[in-house]
């Protein structure tokens, strides 16, 4: 996940990587060997190849270290400011606390301005921008919390996270930052969850715990749909793979939880049959969307394992309803192991085919 997601090349129709590729030649060669992309005869040429490549990029390992330290530094600076006024709460007038955080916000914006004046395309400016955006977002959240804490208006906590999420979305869109999109995902999910916890409804839709989970899951799948369509249509604005996968995972997990709750906690009836047919219908639909239309191995994995979990619970419910428990356990166990292994083999095959195609097309 890159802080400032603006790689200079165009977005790929293939599944984009969640993490930047390792710049280490050894790591790349090991990956190719593991994947079976290199013939055995090629092994004898590897030491010379590694030496040649590493002599051209002698300090490749420094780059991820720099990035990590920069982001950790931004986080520590933000946390340091928050802890400073928290520790000196009684000694500082509240105007001093506001001034401290607002000055830090202004400095973060000034830093962004300075970085924007650097030569475009330089990788250091991507890193610095990402770190400064992280710091800015953290400080804005701290300021919102500080105002709420100082004046004690009794406002609901969801409002803080909703305002914070709305703010985060703007720099996330402006800088196309996957990290800020992920922050937006976290803040908006928290706002939704706290809204249901505080008020028990949203826009007039009254929801108990189960329905709240379902509504949050649908919202997450909506966000996933937006980012997925944007990515497939090569819209740089919405090509945010990490946030996309977070939204998908949350959405699918919420649906799975809702399904599991109703599978196990209601009288065996027509809804179990409906769930069975829904799961059956999902398989070709997911195949079309994530395999035929555009290959998304991660999405297939997330949906696939959720369907296996759901169908296992359905099977267990049917078997345990009146059957013999030991045999039922064995059958459910075999079903889970068989389906999971089959899916894992299928997904590994897809990854290998995808990599081979990438290599063949020189992408």
């Amino acid at each position, binding site marked *: 996940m890159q802080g400032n997601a603006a790689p200079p090349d165009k977005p790929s129709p293939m599944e984009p990587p969640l993490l930047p590729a390792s710049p280490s030649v050894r790591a790349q060669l090991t990956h190719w060997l593991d994947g079976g992309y290199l013939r055995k005869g090629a092994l004898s040429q590897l030491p010379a190849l590694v030496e040649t490549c590493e002599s051209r990029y002698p300090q490749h390992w420094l780059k991820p270290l720099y990035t990590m330290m920069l982001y950790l530094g931004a986080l520590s600076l933000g946390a340091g400011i928050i802890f400073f006024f*928290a520790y000196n709460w*009684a000694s500082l007038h509240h105007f001093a606390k506001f001034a401290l955080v607002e000055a830090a916000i202004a400095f973060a914006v000034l830093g962004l301005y300075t970085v924007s004046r650097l030569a475009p395309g330089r990788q250091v400016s991507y890193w610095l921008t990402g770190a400064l955006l992280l710091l800015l977002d953290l400080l804005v959240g701290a*300021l919102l919390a500080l105002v709420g804490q100082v004046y004690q208006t*009794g406002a609901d906590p969801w409002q803080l996270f909703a305002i914070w999420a709305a703010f985060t979305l703007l*720099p996330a869109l402006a*800088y196309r930052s996957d990290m800020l999109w992920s922050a937006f995902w976290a803040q908006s999910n928290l706002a939704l969850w706290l809204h249901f916890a505080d008020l*028990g409804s949203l826009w007039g839709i009254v929801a108990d715990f189960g329905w709240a989970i379902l509504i949050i899951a649908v919202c997450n799948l909506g966000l996933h749909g937006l980012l997925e369509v944007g990515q497939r249509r090569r819209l740089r604005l919405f090509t945010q793979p990490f946030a996309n996968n977070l939204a998908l995972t949350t959405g699918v997990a919420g649906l799975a939880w809702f399904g599991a709750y109703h599978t196990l906690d209601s009288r065996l009836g027509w809804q179990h049959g409906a769930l069975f047919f829904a799961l059956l219908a999902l398989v070709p639909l997911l195949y079309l969307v994530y395999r035929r239309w555009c290959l998304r191995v991660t999405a297939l994995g997330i949906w696939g394992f959720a369907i296996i979990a759901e169908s296992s619970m359905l099977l267990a419910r049917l078997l345990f309803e009146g059957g013999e428990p030991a045999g039922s356990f064995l059958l459910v166990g075999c079903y889970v192991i068989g389906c999971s292994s089959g899916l894992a083999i299928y997904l590994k095959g897809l990854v290998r085919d995808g990599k081979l195609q990438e290599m063949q097309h020189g992408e």
Partner: protein
Amino acid sequence: MKGHHAFWLTLIATFGLLAVINVDIASKERQLAEGTVVRFALAPVDPRSLMQGDYMALAYALETPILGALTEEERAGSLNAYVWVTLDEHAQAHFVAIDRGEPKPADVQRVQFRLRDGQIKLASNAWFFEEGSAARFDIARYGEFRLGDDGTVLLSALLDEQFNVL
């Protein structure tokens, strides 16, 4: 979006939010300085500990008549509403009725309250103070609030039985 466009959008968003927050701070400071003084009698309090130091969980005597005036259905859910109160010579608030949209009688004040999880919240239900000074607030009998024109209240002080600020 080009780097400088992204920067200007972020600048506008950041300083726009800072402007809104600072206007809100100024309006709250004005309310604390100029708002009508309203004092709510406290129900027994419960000292606890938190990161910033200590705080006291507050409950108000006014909560009981408010809860009593709500319907069963209202009590079961969440509510943002207003209550009418009269103020005596010590600015202590006394319950009149729940504001249900009828014309406001003369000499009553309209105060916002929230109902969450069956509990009435009059602005804050907590009073934060420096660690180690809990004993000072043991004798608190009233919470002093400043009432805004829109019915919002901000807790400004805790008072003893003789209405002295603690």
